[in-house]
């Protein structure tokens, strides 16, 4: 009985997060962390690690639903969390693209996108604050963040190499 309740909660949380992720999927990371921790599916540390891992594997960053679902309810949790995150908005996208030709010449879609962007950026910075406050405990941790930012902005290194380097540095300096 408890298991089904967890699955329903996973479905509701991830469907809600997916529908709220306007502007960028990164927008909802802060809220996702709050929801996941509040339901007791992960600690803040575990969530941060799962988020880091989701950036180092192929596919969309939305794959973070996999470790959360697994931790909450095993394989069934993975299916429910991932499905709830992808399916409703994917079906919505199919529906909207069928109607898109009616609004494609309107200036509103672009105006809405530009208007939402600064709000999305502020929410992402909110997630950085929230995750950082809970997980950055020493200078080496902070340095890994700084080096990652600089490498992303200044080089064309593949993300898998950046993440591999960060994990190697973590194994040496952060254990």
């Amino acid at each position, binding site marked *: 009985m408890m298991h089904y309740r967890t699955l329903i909660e996973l479905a509701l949380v991830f469907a809600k997060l*997916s*529908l709220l*992720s306007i502007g*960028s*999927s*990164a*927008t909802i*990371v*802060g*809220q996702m962390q709050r929801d996941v921790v509040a339901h007791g599916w992960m600690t803040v540390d575990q969530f*941060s*690690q799962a988020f*880091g*891992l989701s*950036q180092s*594997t192929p596919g*969309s960053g939305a*794959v973070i639903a*996999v*470790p959360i679902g*697994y931790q909450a309810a095993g394989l069934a949790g*993975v299916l429910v969390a*991932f499905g709830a995150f992808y399916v409703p*908005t*994917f079906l919505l*996208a199919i529906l909207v*693209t*069928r109607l898109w030709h009616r609004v494609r010449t309107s*200036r*509103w*879609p*672009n*105006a809405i*996108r*530009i*208007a939402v962007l600064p*709000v*999305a*950026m*502020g*929410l992402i*910075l*909110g*997630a*950085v*604050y929230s*995750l950082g406050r809970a*997980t*950055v405990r020493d200078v080496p*941790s902070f340095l*890994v*963040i700084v*080096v990652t930012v600089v490498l*992303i902005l200044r080089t064309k290194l593949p*993300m898998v190499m*950046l993440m591999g380097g*960060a994990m190697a540095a*973590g194994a040496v300096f*952060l*254990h």
Partner: protein
Amino acid sequence: MPRIFRTKWARFTRDGGAALEGQHVDIKPAQEARLASERSAPTLLRLTLVLLWIGATSFGGSTPPYFFQEFVRRRSWVSPEDFTEAYAVGRLLPGPTGANTLAYLIQSLRGPLIAAYCLIPYTLPSVLIMLLFTALLTRAPGNPYVHGALAGAAMAGIGVLVATVFQMTASASRARLWPLFIVAAFLSGGLLATNFFLTLLVLSALSLAVNLPEGRRSEE
């Protein structure tokens, strides 16, 4: 490269296709690609194989650049113009941008049912790889090196978020009062941890109010 495509390409890279920026682009002229897309609708098997490949190799957290490579550059299934539009729609809608872009592309190529099916080969490889990682790591919780490596991944994940904000700045700076809305959203969503939906709804509505399309603004 024809001027019309250079313009489209510049708009695409500026609007968030940053992962593609700087890559060598040797593409057929736009008209040629459009003609090619008209004469070659991909088979279901071909679509499945291409999406499985993209799902297994698209490192970096953003899949639209990989769609561009496979759908536009390599196979000419879609014209650059149509791809640019698909990407713009994908970013506008809620949910993962890559999946939304894919929905638009497949919808235009093979219709809604095949589009719905394509979500499976697109997501399956990354889910299986992530599941493998998760299962392996949960079996070694006490190992200090594994713990350190995960902590390193977590810090890099935070770095990715910070870099994302920097990369969005060029597009966001086209909005009026954009620094104000960044600070307001940060304070509300981060420091005060107020209701996410309310923050998004209220601040987006205010931002839209001061960023009405030009025609609409002059009418009022």
